């Protein structure tokens, strides 16, 4: 199993005007593992995932998927490469039901010779497929015909995660997946992330909840001011070191690879 990592970022650099948002960031994620991306606010985590998911373009550096470099010019390219992102605000459609949310922007429809917008939607087929995904991921949802706006925060989060899971063939990126959730709802989402991992996805999770990171991540990368300042295996004995890396304590200075 010495194949290329599912997703590899090499020397990623991104500037917004005078601000250096990403400074030669490199990281790798393998299939069937969870990478926690840690760091204080403004560390560059969100910029990094936006570059991976095609919302921003890198100024320099490469993104490799299964060893092959991919130019992430827009969100569609990233999705075509099997990378799905769950944003903090979920990007759900409250007025639509679960199935419609799953397939938003990629509705199953026919005939194929018509432009996409003019095709006739295959409602039953989409309903069956979304039922299949919901069943596979063991998500607990009310009737799939209910509009998503009527659902609880945890259910909405589950739908957003499941929507990504349904279509991601390689990488799922989650930005603060449990930030807005209660204890029980967080539990459900964490279980869902572990199930994604078990299905062979490479998972990147941004989180401030150290307990969650300790539990689900196989590996943790800490960022500060646009750089990767340290890496660690999230185990209880490393916890203090990880926290000091995040806040920029003494320990982190010695971790820097460059002066």
């Amino acid at each position, binding site marked *: 199993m010495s194949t290329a990592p599912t997703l590899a970022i090499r020397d990623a650099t991104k500037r917004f005007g005078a601000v250096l948002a990403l400074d030669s960031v490199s990281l790798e994620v393998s299939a069937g593992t969870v990478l926690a991306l840690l760091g204080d606010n403004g560390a560059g985590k969100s910029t990094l995932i936006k570059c991976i998911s095609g*919302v921003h373009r890198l100024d320099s550096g490469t993104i490799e998927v299964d060893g092959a470099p991919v130019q992430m010019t827009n*969100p*569609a390219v990233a*999705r075509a490469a099997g990378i799905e992102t769950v*944003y903090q*605000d*979920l*990007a*759900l*459609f*409250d*007025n*639509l039901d679960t199935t*419609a949310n799953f397939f*938003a*922007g*990629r*509705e199953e*429809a026919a005939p194929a010779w018509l432009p*996409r*917008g*003019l*095709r*006739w*939607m295959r409602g039953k087929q989409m309903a069956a497929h979304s039922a299949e995904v919901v069943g596979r991921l063991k998500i*607990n949802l*009310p009737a799939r015909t209910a509009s998503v*706006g*009527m*659902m*609880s*925060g*945890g259910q909405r989060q589950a739908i957003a995660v499941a929507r990504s899971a349904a279509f991601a063939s390689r990488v799922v990126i989650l930005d603060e997946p449990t930030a807005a959730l209660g204890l029980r709802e967080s539990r459900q989402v964490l279980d869902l992330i572990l199930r994604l991992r078990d299905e062979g996805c490479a998972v990147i999770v941004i989180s401030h909840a150290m307990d969650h990171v300790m539990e689900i991540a196989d590996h943790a990368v800490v960022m500060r001011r646009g750089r990767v300042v340290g890496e660690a295996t999230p185990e209880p004995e490393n916890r203090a070191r990880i926290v000091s890396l995040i806040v920029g304590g003494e320990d982190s200075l010695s971790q820097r690879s460059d002066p």
Partner: protein
Amino acid sequence: MLEPDQIAASTRDAVRAPADSAARPAGTVRLVGLVLTLLRLGPLLILVVLIAVLSNLSPVFFTPQNLGNVLTQCAAIAILAIGQLLVILTRGIDLSVGSTLALSAVVGALVYAETASGFATILAMLLTGALVGAVNGFGYVYGRLPHPFIVTLATLSIARGLALGLSGGQPISGMPDIVTSIGGGAATWLAPWFPNAAFLVAAVAILVTVLLRGLVWGRWIYAVGGSPEGARRVGIPRSRVLVSVYVLSGLLAGVAAIVTSGRLNAGSPTFGQLAELDAIAAVVIGGASFLGGRGHVGNALIGAIMIGVIRNGMNLLNVEAFLQLIVIGVVIVIAVESDVIRGALEARFRVLKAASA
């Protein structure tokens, strides 16, 4: 009917619900669900009650002849309202449709005077409407305006001005037979009182329903209204969807121009004054959400018929004109308020469901 103490009990439940989690909320969830269903069916129920009451108060109201009148009067508003619905579904508004109707009618009358061709007249009316709609759509999206209110307000003024200028301020009489037949004729083969325009409304309603329910584009219209930013992130061509709804709204204003100018056998620059407000009112009264993303063609139709029935009924009952305006205004407020209450209840429903889960 709930007895007063039952109501009191269910209110107590609602207050207590978040505290004791398991058993109590189930009943409250049902109650809130019931109220939500009533709110959803509200406009139709009100329309039925309204028709029943007017039939009792006026011996003339429920006669075939008068119902034919109501349908004729509703037809143009209904078509405009269906176009307005598409725009409102995307969180927009189209203030220009009344003026567009007038401009289309005037252009149609001029083309007919020039060519004497029914086909060319209808084509000119439809194209004029679609063109104004395209100005609205492109102006809004590619002018990166914060809201379509301003651009459609501008075209409201421009289209009316063009209609007045082109016609010299006077009605231009004369419309081809096909237009007068659609707008003013009756389906004698069916019933002498049944207006042809009702078939046109039905055709428009069916086509737009097919678009909204069957086609991917229709789903995208709802998606853009539900979450404009989400639509962009999932790769829906948001700008094109937005432009399309304004073009369709303008096109339907051209269709409404066929009805109005056919009924009056003329194209006049004074057609459709304040019709945009009737159209918006119809959509909202009919139960579509003014906040976008929710509603269907049935809402626009029910709203248009309700406005027509209220006007017709009050005319029959000799209610003074100023009271009609007040009544319609009050109905609009009630409709919008029930939309707000629906939103609040849905949030409440969500909390209760989470508590009882």
